[in-house]
């Protein structure tokens, strides 16, 4: 007899018809569910996310099949999920092939391919992947039920105990795992019963099925008994499977569709280039104040979340007990969007369920966006909600007065403009005014690097290095205004635009080739966001410039420093702009031994100052450590570190403070990149005009 099996072997005609009716019903319910979802998404604001659709689909396919994002920072889960994914996919395709044979190829084309070598290969393949599916499910169940990593803990930092009930989620999670496991298990049992019925020898090509069948036959289940068992179990399996399909749009199973969909419509520059506001926008329409203000793709992303908790585990605010968890933010919004009434009445999301302190806790560090396996854009969503709060004047008094100060004085220190370049007074050479003379490099210094005393030392170090190698650079003196990166991240979009316009005007009047900054925030906004307002230039971070000079042989260290250092990747340099290597190569070039902290590169742990938080009141819980203190603990625990190296002025400020307050003073010191490079040049100390602290440093 030919190697094949007959579908619906045991069923009467009316039963087959009934079965197809069930399929029709389940498919309709499924389709109806999908239509409801699409209708929901269409209530969101429009945006361009379907451009280059071909490229998007290709990339999505690649990401899904390689599990590139799912594997990050957790290979076991990645592997487990891959098993489940491929197992499920293969079994699904297997069923589709069967359907194709029975309902089209056979009756319409008269082709019967489901036999012989095809059938045998098919059987083996499906058995292997069925096992993979079960193994994967077991791995995930062990993770969730036994190992219980922090990210799967549903504790939330922004509500008190008893104020929230996670049981519905937990049930949803286990139900999903359970149903698929049940289907896989019953699938194999069915196979076993089917084979046990007549035990055709070729069915050894379904190893597990064959094994089960032998087991059944051994206990006397064969022939008619097996057939009856098969019949009953078949209907159970069938109904459960169809119910599963029908309820996909309503359960965790939806992520099988929504997650890849979200990946397809993702903006790669999410958070890295925030959207501008049209000039004629109405006050009510600024930012996200209502659930229907979200763009349609953000509404999709709410449904793409699988509650994996990777964002929750990566978030520095959550780690410090601030009332923010990116996961809970997304899921709270999802709950609102799932409520048809809420969508209908365009319900407000500010205050309830998203509290202002939750939104203000965010450091906009992008750790969440970076690690999310399904491409959710938490940071832009928070930013939009901040815009709505600022529009309504609902913000920290400190933040409000900082905005007012920046508007009046053009900097966040409230200092008069003429003091901006005061840091240069102690240098023993003149700094070019690039407004008046052409220069190859325009140095946009930035607020903290200009006004903060500790950072001024680093700024002077950089100036001296560049002067020593004869670089042609100049600054904007008192015409420079704050770059506005944090103003934008804090939600005052109009103020950012105004600052940007003025800076663009000033810079455009200068004659130069490239811009550089030692401040990653300035570097970031000038490079990525100013082009939207007409200011488009080549912008470098000083680590890139210094490395370039070393590689060109212009900057030659006089001696290797021989320090044991660790390097903190600034959020705006690393995650936002992908600059991880230049500072490291620079440290190697000056002869420092780099010891990496556990959380490095794209997993770097924010200092806590970003997103305008440095201008807001502290939100940490009683007795908790600040993010910057946690980071210093991490560095000190490496053992024997001479210097904690920073490449960002705000990092310098935060970490100098944290070294004192974390009780590690004396165990570790801080250096900015420029200071180390200067030291490696072994220049004589500045003349008496310089502060004693600088000479002390150089003598050390």
């Amino acid at each position, binding site marked *: 007899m030919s190697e094949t099996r007959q579908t619906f072997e045991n069923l009467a005609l009316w039963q087959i018809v009934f079965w197809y009716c069930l399929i029709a019903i389940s498919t309709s319910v499924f389709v109806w569910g999908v239509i409801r979802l699409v209708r929901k998404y269409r209530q969101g604001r429009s945006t361009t996310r379907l451009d280059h659709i071909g490229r998007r689909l290709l990339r999505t396919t690649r990401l899904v099949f390689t599990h590139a994002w799912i594997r990050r920072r957790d290979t076991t889960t990645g592997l487990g999920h891959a098993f489940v994914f491929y197992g499920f996919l293969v079994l699904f395709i297997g069923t589709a092939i069967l359907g194709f044979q029975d309902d089209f190829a056979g009756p319409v084309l008269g082709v019967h391919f489901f036999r012989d070598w095809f059938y045998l290969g098919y059987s083996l393949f499906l058995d292997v992947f069925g096992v993979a599916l079960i193994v994967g499910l077991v791995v995930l169940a062990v993770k969730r039920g036994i190992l219980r990593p922090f990210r799967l803990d549903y504790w939330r930092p922004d509500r008190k105990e008893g104020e929230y009930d996670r049981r519905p989620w937990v049930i949803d999670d286990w139900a999903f795992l359970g149903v698929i496991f049940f289907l896989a298990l019953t699938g194999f049992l069915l196979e076993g019963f089917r084979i046990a019925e007549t035990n055709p020898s070729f069915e050894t090509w379904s190893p597990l099925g064959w094994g089960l069948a032998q087991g059944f036959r051994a206990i006397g289940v064969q022939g008619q008994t097996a057939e009856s068992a098969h019949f009953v179990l078949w209907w159970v399996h069938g109904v459960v499977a169809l119910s599963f399909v029908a309820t996909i749009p309503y359960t965790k199973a939806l992520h099988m569709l929504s997650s890849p969909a979200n990946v397809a419509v993702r903006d790669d520059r999410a958070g890295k280039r925030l959207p501008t506001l049209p000039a004629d926008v109405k006050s009510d329409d600024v930012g996200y104040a209502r659930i229907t203000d979200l763009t349609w793709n953000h509404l999709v992303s709410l449904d793409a979340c699988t509650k994996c908790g990777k964002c929750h585990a990566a978030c520095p605010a959550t780690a410090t007990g601030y009332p923010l968890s990116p996961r809970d933010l997304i899921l709270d919004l999802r709950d609102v969007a799932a409520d048809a009434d809420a969508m209908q009445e365009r319900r407000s999301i500010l205050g309830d369920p998203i509290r202002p302190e939750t939104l203000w806790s965010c450091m906009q560090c992008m750790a969440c966006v970076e690690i999310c396996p399904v491409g959710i854009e938490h940071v832009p969503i928070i930013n939009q909600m901040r815009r709505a709060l600022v529009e309504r*004047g609902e913000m920290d008094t400190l933040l409000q007065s900082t905005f007012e100060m920046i508007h009046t004085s053009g900097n966040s220190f409230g200092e*008069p403009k003429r003091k901006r370049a005061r840091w240069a007074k102690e240098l023993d050479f003149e700094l070019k005014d690039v407004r008046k003379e052409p220069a190859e490099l325009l140095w946009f210094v930035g607020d903290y690097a200009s006004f903060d005393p500790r950072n001024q030392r680093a700024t002077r170090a950089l100036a001296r290095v560049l002067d020593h190698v004869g670089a042609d650079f100049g600054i904007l003196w008192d015409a420079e205004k704050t770059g506005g990166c944090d103003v934008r991240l804090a939600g005052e979009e*109009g*103020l950012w635009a*105004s600052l940007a316009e003025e800076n663009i005007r000033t810079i455009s009047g200068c004659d130069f080739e490239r811009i550089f900054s030692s401040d990653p925030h300035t570097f970031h906004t000038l490079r990525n966001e100013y082009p939207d307002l007409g200011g488009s230039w080549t912008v470098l971070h000083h680590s890139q410039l210094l490395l370039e000079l070393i590689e060109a042989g212009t900057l030659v260290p006089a001696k290797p420093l021989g320090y044991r250092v660790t390097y903190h990747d600034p959020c705006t340099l690393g995650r936002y702009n992908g600059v991880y290597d230049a500072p490291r190569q620079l440290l190697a070039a000056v002869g420092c031994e780099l010891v990496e902290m556990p959380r490095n590169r794209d997993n770097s742990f924010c200092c806590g100052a970003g997103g305008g938080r440095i201008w807001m009141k502290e939100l940490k819980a009683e007795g908790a450590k600040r993010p910057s203190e946690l980071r210093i603990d991490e560095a000190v625990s490496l053992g024997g570190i001479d210097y904690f190296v920073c490449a960002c002025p705000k990092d310098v400020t935060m970490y100098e403070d944290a070294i004192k307050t974390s009780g590690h003073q004396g165990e570790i010191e801080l250096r900015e990149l420029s200071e180390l490079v200067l030291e490696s040049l072994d220049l004589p100390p500045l003349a008496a005009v310089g502060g004693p602290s600088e000479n002390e440093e150089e003598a050390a």
Partner: protein
Amino acid sequence: MKIVVCIKQVAALGDEVEFSDDGLDVDPDYLELALNEWDGYATEEALRICEQAGGEGDEVVVVSAGGEEVDAALRRCLAMGADRGVRVELAGRADPFTVARALAPVVAREQPDLVFAGVQSSDAVQAATGIALAELLGLPGVAVVNKLDWDAAARRARVHRELEGGLVDVVDVETPALLTIQTGINEPRYATLRAIKQAEQKEIVVEAAAGDGEPAYRVRRMFVPPKGEGAEMLAGDPAQVAARIAELVKERLA
């Protein structure tokens, strides 16, 4: 209901100062301009009264005297919600009487129910322009108001005058009247830059100054006061400073 708010754009001086050639004024290069803090409270109070009254045709009009640079302060108030602005062109140094005379015809023409001014400006601290203006307008003037209850039906204002030592004098004022508003009476709303930009569409009418008269005073000389003995400055890091303070405290309390 119409309220006119008289505002001033004040000049803040940093730690450096140079005087103008005639030595009678500070060189404008050393000054940074901003809306007077008291006037922010006054504008907010006017907006609140009108919002509470909630009728049709309520208007808050902001007026000021000075050159083009004053428009920024007016725009800030327009961005907060004021309806329109008037600037009286006034060049040169302004003393309280000169400003009051410049504003009086504009305010009178508006026929407001209430006129607000800040108690004082942060740069000159004269606390005079408001009351001088009241005199010119022939309105009752009450200074240093830290609470205002406006009875729209009776058109009567009951205000609290904030006296020294925290004492409060409750006063019933016939309206129309001029009140000078003290800080802390409310929480001024934030005007986003976007609102300030959009306020550019609200009108600011510029008028020439009418009215002559003697200024309140003539400046004979302006100078930086000698530091005198000043404080004995304690040197060292915070720990050393704290140690010295602790010593002093123990010493002087004995």
